[in-house]
């Protein structure tokens, strides 16, 4: 099993509520700013995009790379984070 970061565990452990987009695993300050510029200012908006893509990990990673300039690792991490959150709370 892969190891998860503390940020990942923090996010997946509770409903996201009004958390900012930088609370997502893999999304730091710089990526967060880029997303906010495009209107994805809260984590739930990114969740919305994830759900629009039918929770497809690959497509979401691709979108994230395009939208924020994330690399594969960051996009994968965010994808996994959202997948697990949905498994737990959706």
């Amino acid at each position, binding site marked *: 099993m*892969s190891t998860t970061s503390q940020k990942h565990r923090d996010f997946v*452990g509770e409903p996201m509520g009004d958390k900012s987009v930088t609370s997502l695993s893999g999304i730091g300050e710089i990526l967060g700013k880029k997303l906010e510029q495009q209107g994805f200012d809260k984590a739930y908006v990114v969740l919305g995009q994830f759900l*629009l893509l039918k929770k497809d990990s*690959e497509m979401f990673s691709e*979108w994230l790379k395009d939208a924020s300039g994330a690399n*594969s690792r960051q996009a*994968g991490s965010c994808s*996994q984070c959202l997948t697990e959150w949905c498994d*737990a709370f959706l």
Partner: protein
Amino acid sequence: MSLFMEDPAHFSKSRLKLDLVAHNVVLPPTKSRKEIYVDLYLKHIAQKNAGDFSSDDEDQEQDLADKEEEEDAEILVQSCLTDDDLKAALLKHGVKAGPIVASTRALYENKLRRLEQSEGQGHVNGVEKGVLYSDSEEEEEQGEQEDGESGSEGAKEETAEQSNQAQQGSSQPSQEPVKDTIEEMFLNMEASPTGICATRRRPIKGAAGRPVQYIYPDTPTSPTTLERREVERRLVPIHIQILVFFILACLLYIIYVCVEGNSFSPFVALLDSLDQGSESEEGLMLQAETQDTPVISGQE
């Protein structure tokens, strides 16, 4: 008259497509052979360009920008599709697309493009195999170059497709189902380069109406609490302590009275008085009298 004659047969298929679209020529179906494009090109465009040749620099620039043009051609073709058409096209390739909205449209267009390229290459390779034995080698080389070009720009981040194309070069059209599964395998690997698999995780306890699956122990006791509990277990319970205290108090009082009385009769009188309970003063008076009388009797 110009020195450079553009030979459309040397253009790539996508370049021809782009040029046709730019001149508002109806494109043939996507999987047509290159020769059809060349014919159309010669028909419509070569006549136009006969009088248009001005700069030779354009040719060189266009060759360099070939990659981008290929992309643009594809983009042109696909942005003409409506949302429904795009969805239907994806469904044809076996992809169940979600809602096609502003933010998802670009993604799905890319996906469709990639799917069409990989399929188109499979078809073109199959066609060219037949051509191999009859036509000159030039065409084959051009075809492979075209595949290489479109392959390298289409692959972008996905190394899977590059290795896949190598396979396609040698595989026959009848092996497409096998190729697809291998492609899927490779795609999966690419999606998790660090080996992270998004497997379903066991739900969090108590969340969203799920029953508690893992019960945490009660709040852990501190060392001092544990010590106190140990000590308390060994001590005598407090009720018994109070009872013992009262019994001892009574005994001591009785002993004190006995010591003061120092004879049997006062002891009995004391006991009587104790039995009666409320006549403690009389008991004391009796005690005094009985004490005096022996003393008096003793003195006499």
